[in-house]
């Protein structure tokens, strides 16, 4: 009953264009009102929101957003693209491969797929068009490869996951994301090259001279140094992920204001207010989603879904496939933050139970499952009806969603193949944090 009320009202409000955070909040209130009086319902939701948004873990989110804004407006995107061109531009499918690599590099210094799509795509889509790549292909490639940044750390969505999963180190999760993110990027590169050669897209960029290479390396080095400072600090335990995010803000500020000099001091208040606004948007989603997850737990939804999934099959491979399919479906119409907060408590216990069947431990499964859920929802960002990154890509290229779908299909298939590898090969997620850096056990 509670769940029927909740889903029904949620979908109705969604179609009426009620902002999503309020859709979640109002349907949570209505669902709670079914079994409780109004007074405790309102107080409980307010209290869930209050405690969730004051957690020290989440502090890293506004800091990474702020650092990302400094970098996005500070000319870093352009230098990353320059560097990607001299490193891989001369390969077959030159600018297509460059596009993917630039998105991965951007993801390694910032944590937002939307920022990558607009920062990298804004330059790469017109550049590819000039080199005789079709616009729809350029846009589809940008949209899919922008999501690699969410797997490659630093990534805000892992922080949100760490809060609900419990007992997971953010640093460990960050490092766990490297190989899956690179695998996704690599599979997109391969398909992009195949598509380019088969359809005869684009011209080949000449091999760079030593001078060109050195110049672009010097340009990009300060940006990559930030990556070493932030991730190095986390890996060596010099500071926590939250502290690293504040250090990233200071470094990005100094870099873009005093070194690259592309942001003036008088622009700072505007950037601060924009960051606060984005933070507020994300945190209202977090607060209301936590309230909704609480109601799901109160109505025993995790147990119901557990029974349902186990009723279909007892084969761990089938169960994991089913979880992936559900998460992919969820991702098509739900934004990442609420999806992670609501579905982690439901599926993580099932995944932990399956850990021995995959030859891993429940403890390690927490990390691997974090990668799996984020990977699934990343793909959801590229699909209609609700695909933020898709809309941004289409907006920049000025094409319709129908046009972008066709070139996206092969890229999407490659991404799903990478997702399946990540799902069934625990090593991909756990080797770096456990065996190489010994951050988790």
């Amino acid at each position, binding site marked *: 009953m509670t769940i029927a009320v909740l889903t029904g009202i949620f979908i109705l409000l969604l179609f009426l264009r*009620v902002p999503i955070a309020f859709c979640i909040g109002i349907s949570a209130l209505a669902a709670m009102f079914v079994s409780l009086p109004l007074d405790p319902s309102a107080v409980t939701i*307010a209290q869930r929101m209050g405690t969730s948004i004051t957690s020290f873990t989440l502090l890293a989110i506004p800091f990474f957003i702020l650092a990302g804004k400094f970098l996005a407006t500070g000319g870093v995107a352009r230098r990353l693209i320059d560097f990607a061109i001299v490193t891989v531009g001369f390969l077959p499918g030159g600018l297509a491969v460059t596009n993917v690599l630039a998105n991965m590099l951007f993801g390694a210094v910032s944590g937002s797929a939307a920022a990558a799509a607009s920062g990298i795509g804004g330059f790469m889509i017109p550049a590819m068009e000039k080199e005789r790549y079709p616009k729809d292909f350029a846009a589809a490639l940008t949209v899919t490869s922008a999501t690699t940044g969410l797997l490659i750390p630093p990534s805000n969505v892992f922080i949100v996951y760490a809060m609900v999963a419990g007992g997971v180190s953010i640093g460990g999760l960050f490092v766990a994301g490297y190989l899956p993110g690179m695998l996704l990027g690599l599979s997109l590169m391969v398909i992009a090259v195949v598509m380019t050669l088969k359809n005869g897209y684009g011209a080949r960029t000449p091999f760079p001279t030593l001078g060109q290479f050195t110049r672009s390396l010097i340009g990009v080095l300060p940006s990559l140094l930030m990556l070493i400072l932030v991730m190095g600090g986390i890996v060596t335990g010099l500071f926590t992920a939250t502290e690293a995010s504040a250090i990233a803000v200071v470094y990005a500020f100094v870099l873009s204001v005093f070194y690259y000099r592309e942001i003036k001091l008088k622009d700072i208040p505007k950037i601060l207010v924009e960051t606060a606004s984005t933070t507020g948007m994300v945190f209202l989603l977090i607060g209301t989603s936590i309230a909704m997850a609480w109601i799901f737990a109160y109505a025993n939804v995790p147990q119901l879904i557990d029974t349902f999934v186990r009723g279909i099959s007892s084969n761990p491979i089938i169960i994991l496939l089913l979880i992936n399919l559900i998460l992919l479906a969820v991702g098509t*119409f739900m934004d990442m933050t609420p999806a992670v907060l609501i579905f982690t408590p439901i599926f993580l216990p099932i995944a932990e139970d399956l850990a021995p069947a995959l030859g891993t431990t429940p403890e390690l499964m927490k990390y691997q499952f974090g990668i799996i859920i984020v990977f699934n929802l990343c793909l959801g960002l590229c699909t209609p009806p609700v695909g933020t990154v898709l809309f941004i890509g289409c907006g920049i290229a000025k094409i319709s969603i129908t046009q972008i779908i066709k070139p996206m299909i092969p890229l999407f298939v490659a991404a799903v193949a990478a997702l399946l590898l990540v799902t069934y090969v625990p090593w991909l997620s756990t080797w770096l944090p456990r065996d190489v850096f010994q951050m988790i056990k």
Partner: protein
Amino acid sequence: MNAIKRINERLEYALKLVLCVLLSVMTITVVWQVLSRLLARVSVTYGLPLLIEPSRWTEELASFQLGWLALLGAAYALRKHEHLGFDFIYLKMSLLAQRRIELLVRALVILFCLVVLVYGGTRLVMMTIALHQTTAGLQWPMAVIYAVIPISGLFMTSFALEGVFKPGESQLEEGRVEEAAL
């Protein structure tokens, strides 16, 4: 209606100031946490008389600043029409229908703000006062932290009275959304 407009313009200006200060101070707080710990470690290792102890209160202070930043930021985002909605179906309707629906959405947003944030938040604050709840480290009354819930609720109500989004305009056009997804 004009009175609301004028009030909202002032509220927006005040919010901007508070948000700038909060975010800057929050950054300094956490940077100080790292520095104080590193300096303390250095001074112990090399026997330097720096007299610095790793800070204990910064973590708690920063989390409270976060609570205020988040909800006041959410109010500012509402003012700037930045809270994302699903407008695929909505934009296919006639402009008249869109205008009517926007009024309904305003009412729903205000309903949530008044019931959960203002009423529920105030009740929560009263409860923590009645129970004399204080924070673990700084020993501040919890009411100071939770007070942001009803306050942001009032801000949001006032902003929502003027509008939640512009009928006929897509939110996801180029440049409107920079950091929609995390």
